[in-house]
């Protein structure tokens, strides 16, 4: 606040007023903050700290919690599903990136070239994103049904042999990736599309004058100009897909033969079906550390480049 705007009457007794006003301003500010502070404290900050604490404890909510060192981690490590869970999560993330990263970008480049039906295409590609995920997943469960599902009916229409989809170890994980891509590619596409529309047209004109063909223009202008958003989306998508839960939970239950068990799914199993909450916490802590690395890179990039 500049001196000019302080009323003359106040200026005479400036020192005490200033202090009192500062105190009052702070009290008001914390009054405004208290609702959010309480929610954050109880449901965000405290659980974060508690995640770490519980990983090293044995709690049964009757006796006092007991410190057990790394025992929970050893329990988790010795679980035969531990390695598959991480491998499947990594595979899922990788496959989801291959599909869910490249396809939206190419789609966005094509959509950006089209002059007709733009609103329709944008709307349609975002429709699955608006469905509740449980609806999308259960819909695909029906499509994947080997006997009367849509996919095998389409295959038989082309006289191709039907697939087992979710029931076979070789296709179960990729089936989950397909659902996930179908449900989520809309948001990526629209974000890329928005980024593409900010590319100055002069760049393309200049490149064209220099004799660059269409693919060269895409390679040397489109991609470098959207590099930042591509990088940010890559990180966001890694963080989002590594938490895959609802697809294995609803579609496969981790099976067949642990071929779709994922880290978050295993965490849920420990806590609610195996009755060993602390082991679930230990697993959660590991995932938290891995994801924090990606999140930290993301925050760094976006902070350096926004506002």
């Amino acid at each position: 606040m500049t001196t000019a705007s302080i009323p003359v009457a106040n200026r005479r007794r400036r020192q005490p007023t200033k202090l009192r006003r500062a105190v009052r301003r702070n009290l008001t500010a914390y009054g405004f903050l208290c609702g959010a502070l309480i929610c954050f404290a109880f449901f965000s900050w405290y659980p974060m700290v508690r995640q770490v604490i519980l990983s090293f404890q044995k709690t049964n909510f009757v006796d006092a919690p007991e410190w057990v060192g790394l025992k929970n981690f050893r329990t988790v490590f010795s679980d035969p599903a531990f390695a598959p869970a991480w491998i499947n999560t990594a595979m899922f993330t990788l496959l989801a990136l291959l599909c869910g990263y490249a396809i939206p970008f190419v789609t966005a480049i094509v959509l950006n070239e089209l002059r007709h039906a733009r609103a329709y295409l944008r709307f349609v590609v975002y429709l699955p994103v608006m469905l509740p995920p449980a609806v999308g997943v259960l819909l695909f469960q029906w499509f994947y049904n080997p006997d009367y599902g849509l996919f095998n009916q389409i295959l038989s229409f082309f006289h191709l042999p039907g697939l087992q989809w979710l029931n076979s170890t070789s296709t179960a994980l990729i089936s989950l990736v397909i659902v996930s891509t179908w449900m989520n590619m809309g948001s990526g596409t629209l974000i890329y599309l928005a980024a593409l529309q900010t590319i100055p047209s002069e760049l393309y004109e200049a490149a064209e004058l220099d004799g660059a063909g269409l693919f060269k223009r895409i390679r040397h202008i489109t991609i470098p100009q959207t590099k930042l958003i591509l990088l940010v989306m890559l990180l966001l998508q890694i963080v989002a897909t590594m938490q895959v839960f609802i697809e294995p939970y609803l579609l496969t239950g981790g099976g067949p033969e642990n071929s779709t068990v994922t880290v978050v799914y295993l965490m849920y199993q420990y806590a609610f079906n195996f009755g060993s909450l602390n082991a679930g916490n230990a697993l959660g802590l590991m995932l938290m550390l891995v994801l924090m690395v990606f999140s930290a890179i993301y925050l760094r990039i976006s902070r350096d480049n926004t506002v």
Partner: protein
Amino acid sequence: MSAILQPVGTPPPVSPRQEQPGRESRRPRKPINTQFRTAVSPHQLNTTHGRIIYWTVLVVVVVSFTAAFVFPLYWMITGAMKSTEELNSIPPTFLPKHFSLDGYVQAWDLLELGKLLGNTALYAGGAWLLTIAFDVSAAYALSKLRPVLGKVVLALMLSTLMIPPLVIMLPAYLTVKDVPFFHWDLLNTPWAIWLPAAANGFNVFLLKRFFDSIPRELLEAAEIDGASPGRVLWSVVIPISRPILGVVSILTVVNVWRDFVWPLLVLPDSDKMSISIGIASLSSQMPQNVLVASLVIASIPTIVVFFIFQRHIMAGLTAGSLKG
């Protein structure tokens, strides 16, 4: 801020060079509109060859998008009208043999969808109220009142963005089951959804960034007129923040409506379930056509919201991302 206010669909400013009136098409059929320069050269686009390619690509894209994103929904809507025998028949019928809404009626009754939808609306509505009340006033305090340690509080709130909520779901579940100090059990109560929903760092970030852009002079003018901070927030800040409030509101409601894992943990009672959980928990016991009908009904609210608030939703999508 401008990124939020600007709907995603708005084309970038047209460079003056290309605004030659002769080239602008009045009838969309001929020549292809080249108002916005993209990777494809406008000259090539309007050659015969270019036009053939353009129309081919357009048709292929429209057909494949319709097949990939609309056809599954069509299959779902009509699938609910077919009998179980018809659903199992090979080859499948493209149109249901008899037009009947029995599947929908059965789904509504068997799954008690009315109750589930009511529950979900209650959760989403309460979460919206709390989020707006808490996050707006917090962002206002951090942006305009700037208290001592305000930066630390903001940093702590933003730090929650680094840790995805799913990863801390177990300790968060325990907190809800037995809230520290108060020893309340919030399981199976709407508070279990409402309070955690308000702890949303992204909303605080969006709102604070918007409030930061409101000129100080505007607020000072109100202060000189004797308005208290609360009054300034209510009468000055909120009215000019309509766009961002719209974005935050829709994000909150849609997120609560779509959420699966959290309500799965904290609302195990079948009387309290949200729509997604309710359908998922009964899915294996239902005949296929009834299940599919319930999926259709469950997706109607979000699709309707999308129809109405398309612009806000798409603006919210890019609000958090970079401005280039």
